[in-house]
């Protein structure tokens, strides 16, 4: 088990290394560079050349790559070219916000999705099932950024009950204890609701299908034959067995959720890694793009490995096979 886990982690490390390498060369071979953004359109060719030399961007690309990798693994992630701040500080400030948002939405969307999917499977073919199917398919199809805008329109502009932008109010520094917590929760409500609602669509559809597949299995027939109530069969037998693939799906949905978070962070000005990444890409801020990409790829890969471990814990047969 440990050997297989180590192999899985090694493969994950390979993916992260591949992603950062691809990103590095994509950045270097793309037209325009951070110096042009930094100095603006009125800079002369001489000024651009001097600045490129200062930043080491005039060296051969493989040399730049080797230098970046060696500094990165030693913990030196460089200084943001656009903002002049240490990249590690920028990401250290940003990643808790993303993890908080993505982690909570993952938890909520799966808990609610499992409940909805289980109800649908239990009442298969009923009006409740049809109505919930329409809702989940629609949620599955809604783009996060548009749903976010619609929630802002309703809850911020029309009902005026929730803030639309940022992770804290302007007066947050002056709040203490309970007030600060409430302020944080109010700011998180709309981005969290957006990501959660989208997530419910996918997880409910999956759990409904998995439970319907299982409902014709002999062990379910046996449970019914033993005289157990339909609800007990659903919750104790069918749902429990349907949860193993859900744990794997949970890991696999991390890239999608993280991708969704990038757009949702852009809509709600949520100060997370996604927003830092979007701004850095637009400014060709090489050190920030590289570090943010490495961190996000690392988070996604770690999520997948963790999902494998949990799946193996839930079903020992998987541990013997796949992890």
């Amino acid at each position, binding site marked *: 088990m440990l050997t297989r886990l180590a192999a899985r982690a090694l493969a994950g490390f390979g993916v992260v290394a591949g992603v950062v390498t691809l990103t590095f060369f994509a950045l270097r071979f793309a037209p325009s560079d951070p110096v042009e953004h930094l100095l603006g359109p009125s800079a002369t060719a001489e000024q651009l050349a001097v600045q490129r030399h200062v930043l080491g961007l005039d060296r051969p690309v493989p040399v730049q790559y080797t230098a970046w990798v060696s500094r990165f693994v030693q913990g030196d992630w460089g200084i943001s070219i656009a903002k002049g701040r240490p990249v590690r500080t920028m990401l250290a400030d940003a990643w808790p916000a993303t993890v908080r948002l993505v982690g909570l939405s993952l938890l909520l969307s799966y808990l609610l999705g499992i409940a909805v999917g289980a109800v649908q499977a239990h009442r298969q073919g009923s009006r409740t099932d049809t109505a919930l199917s329409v809702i989940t398919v629609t949620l599955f199809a809604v783009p996060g950024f*548009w749903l976010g805008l619609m929630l802002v329109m309703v809850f911020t502009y029309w009902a005026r009950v929730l803030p639309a932008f940022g992770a804290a109010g302007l007066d947050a520094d002056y709040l203490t204890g309970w007030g600060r917590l409430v302020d944080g929760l109010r700011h998180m409500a709309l981005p969290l609701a957006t990501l959660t609602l989208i997530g419910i669509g996918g997880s409910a*559809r999956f759990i409904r299908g998995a439970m319907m597949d299982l409902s014709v299995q002999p062990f379910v027939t046996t449970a019914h034959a033993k005289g157990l109530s339909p609800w007990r069969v659903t919750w104790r037998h069918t749902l429990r067995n349907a949860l193993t693939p859900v744990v794997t799906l949970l890991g696999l949905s991390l890239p999608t959720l993280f991708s969704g978070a990038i757009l949702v962070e852009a809509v709600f000005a949520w100060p997370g890694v996604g927003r830092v990444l979007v701004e850095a890409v637009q400014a060709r801020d090489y050190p920030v793009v590289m570090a943010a990409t490495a961190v996000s790829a690392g988070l996604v890969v770690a999520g997948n490995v963790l999902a494998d471990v949990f799946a193996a814990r839930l079903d020992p047969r998987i541990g013997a096979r796949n992890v």
Partner: protein
Amino acid sequence: MKRLLRDRRGLFGAVVLVAALVLAIAAPLVTRGDPNAQRDIVATRFVPPLSTDATGGFHVLGTDRFGRDVWTRLVYGARVSLGVGLLAVLISIALGVTVGAVTGYGRGPVPWALLGLTDFALAVPRVVLLLLLAALWQPSTALVIVVLGLTGWMSVARLVHGEVRALAARPFVEGAVASGARRLRVLVRHILPNALTPVIVAAALGVGNAITLEASLSFLGLGVQPPTASWGNMIASGRDVLVNAPWVATVPGAALVLVVVACTLLGDAVRDALEPSAVSHQPVS
């Protein structure tokens, strides 16, 4: 086909998609003409749906901040959004089927390396990759199509790989090999036609996914560039006027959701029609 159309999901999906395609093709006949036409901006901007502007023009879905007719832009935007979705999926399918076939039936180091590449690409967060590729080069419609196509083939390749491997062990394939047919012929004539069922489903779902991603990129300003109308940049242009003109962002978003729901339902119905034993539950990211 009959089974597909008897399924209410399939019928709904097909009707919506055909209607969207017909409207997109017949855009000049069902709209006011030029989607970028601006007249007296002050007199024609932010006209609510089902209203007449100061110059006497009637607008079914209202106008935007430049006085442009939202219905006209929606229909012309459908041309762009549906076109991008369909072409990107065609690229993904072509690449995915080729890679899946080679890795599933080929021998030697090339299939092995391609399979490794597929697994690697599957693990990369797609939107991060899209963001990088779209942001680094000059945004354009063609770039969006190519980038979406180049980042969407992996799941198709994995599907085809699995199908090809399973089919390769079936008696009819062994029979073809035993009769002396060349490997390429066996693959193209015997295996691939039987391996395409999941590809059709993936294509239906992929179109919806590609349309959403195009809209997402355009929303961030990295996709189809204004003044060309696409549903994504229409939503983006309505973002700042949510209070006084909510229809500008709401209408293209609703159209987008309707078409993506149609693609999803059609994909589910196609899967159930082609593989009655399968249950429609696989979410596709």
